[in-house]
């Protein structure tokens, strides 16, 4: 069955100006990603994983090349349109969680819904469902400083999926977690992927994550060196 294309990248080049010169972070990147994928960007530090995720998320713009995400050509969109795209259809998970410290778990997860102007009752049930799916129902009213690292990241996951986005971008989501929590998180994400038909892209060099991936795109020095579809036993848990 042919699935919809979620991301299409052609001839992407990304350069950063550094003191009058340019540093090339990404080059010759061509990439298609379909709905429902559970894909990793893997490569050594500095290989351009975060840069690529940022461009896909519309947080950064390409120097050259076409990037279209969820049917929108990012090159032609304004800041506001890209913000709207993220707000409606994307979720972000960060290595250091990036929860708002003054908000409770509930409030952190609720925020994307508030931005999307979802009404209060619907918000309540959607938040409850998202929080439930990461197993944090009894921490609903805790603030991040009272949570463990794993719980923080689970909150961040709930925030990333609460508005049922088409695409979730996760940058090293397990880098700050121990093995047990890493597996827990990956199981949650893998289940969500199956239930929601949401596509996931991970930037990682964590072996534990790789065991769950169904496609691994290898990056080296800003270029795709290998793109493999794998049949992971854990991906079918």
């Amino acid at each position, binding site marked *: 069955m042919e699935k919809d294309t979620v991301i299409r990248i052609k001839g992407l080049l990304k350069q950063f100006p550094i003191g009058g010169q340019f540093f090339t972070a990404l080059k010759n990147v061509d990439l298609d990603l379909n709905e429902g994928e559970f894909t990793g960007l893997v490569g050594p530090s500095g290989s351009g994983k975060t840069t690529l995720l*940022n461009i896909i*998320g519309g*947080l*950064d713009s390409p120097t050259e090349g076409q990037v279209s995400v969820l049917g929108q050509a990012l090159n032609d969109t304004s*800041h*506001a349109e890209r*913000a*709207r*795209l*993220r*707000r*409606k259809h*994307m979720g*972000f998970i*960060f290595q*250091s969680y*990036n929860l*708002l*410290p*003054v*908000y409770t778990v509930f*409030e952190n997860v609720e*925020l*994307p819904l*508030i*931005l*999307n*102007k979802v009404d209060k009752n619907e918000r309540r049930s959607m938040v409850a469902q998202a929080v439930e799916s990461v197993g944090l129902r009894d921490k609903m009213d805790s603030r991040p400083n009272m949570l463990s690292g794993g719980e923080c990241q689970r909150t961040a996951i709930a*925030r990333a999926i609460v508005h049922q986005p088409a695409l979730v971008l996760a940058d090293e989501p397990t880098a700050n977690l121990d093995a047990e929590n890493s597996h827990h998180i990956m199981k949650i994400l893998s289940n969500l992927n199956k239930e929601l038909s949401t596509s996931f892209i991970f930037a990682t060099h964590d072996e534990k994550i790789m065991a769950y991936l169904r496609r691994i795109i290898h990056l080296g020095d800003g270029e795709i060196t290998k793109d493999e579809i794998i049949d992971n036993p854990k991906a079918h848990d």
Partner: protein
Amino acid sequence: MLLKIALKNLLGARLRTFLNVLVTAFSFYLILFTSAMYDGMLQHAKQVTMDTEIAGGAYWHPEYDPLDPMTFEEAHSVPPSAIQALIDENKAFPVLVSQASIYPGGRIMPTIMKGIPPNQRIVNMPTDALLGHEDIAIPVLIGKGMASESKLEVGDAFTIRWLDTDLTYDADEGTVVHIMDTENFKLDMGHIWIPLNKVQSMLAMEGEATYVTYGKGVQPVQDKGDWIPRDINYLVQDMEAIIEADKPGAQILYLILLAMAAMGIFNAQVLSIFRRGREIGTLMAIGMTRPRVVGLFTLEGGLNAVLSAAVTLIVFGPILWYFGAYGIPLPIDYSEMGLIIAKRLIPVYTIGLVVSTTILVSIIVLIVSYIPSRRIAKMKPTDALRGKVMA
């Protein structure tokens, strides 16, 4: 929606918000309080002057200039008939003014001698203390300041020397019959008050006066001759001039206070944007547009002002009210310094003062909240996310 998030952020950041709000509230309070004190002082000074000196206004002899004692020699005549009629109806009273020298304890002191009808009820002065001293050659009423200057006490006698109409010096003995405690230094410093008929006979100016003060609500007379009407507005002019001259000082004080409050908020705002770079990046990643993030931070700053106003009302309101109701006792008697200042200062909070202060503070708070927040619009979300924020 932004408002809700901003409020949540503020209330969530308990201590930080609390300190910010307290500083702003305190400046708010100080501005209100000092302005109100100032207004209260002015109002009091004006009211005392009207009560003890000006009443409804006056008619002056055309030659009379209170600031130039040399004019006193010429400034006297029988008041025009219409003005005299007011006096006869007890709606006004005449005062005869002359220069004189007194010799308390052998020293010489130049003074202004004023003859006033002891039974007048138009200004608040204890002139009836001058009544019923038939055994005394010249009964004299002086103020506390004058008493301490001349070291005179009730019952003390001293020589008064004056120039009469045929330009010869004359002298007689005056006796202090009362020392009045007046807040109006103009009735006190350098003045001796004597029953009008005594002064008239001393100067040989029977029936004459230098000015006539009338009561409140008395209609202006038509047939005032060449005498000059001086209404309240004119008579408070010099005091208003003193007040105006004093204003820049008070305004500098507000400006400093306002600048303090503004700097506090500006600082807090810059710091908060600097420290919250990651949060800003996260909000952008979640899909908040940059103008909205700017709006959010500006609103947070602005809400500081609202909270501050509320805290001012709740925490400092009772203090403001207490002083407004009971005044503030002053340890020093300022009247000797030539100021009309009550023994208890009572601040006056006018609606105008409260509204203008609130508007002024709010505008300033909004500006100092907005300016640092504007940087956010120039931030790259990727930099913000990495916590890399230019400060």
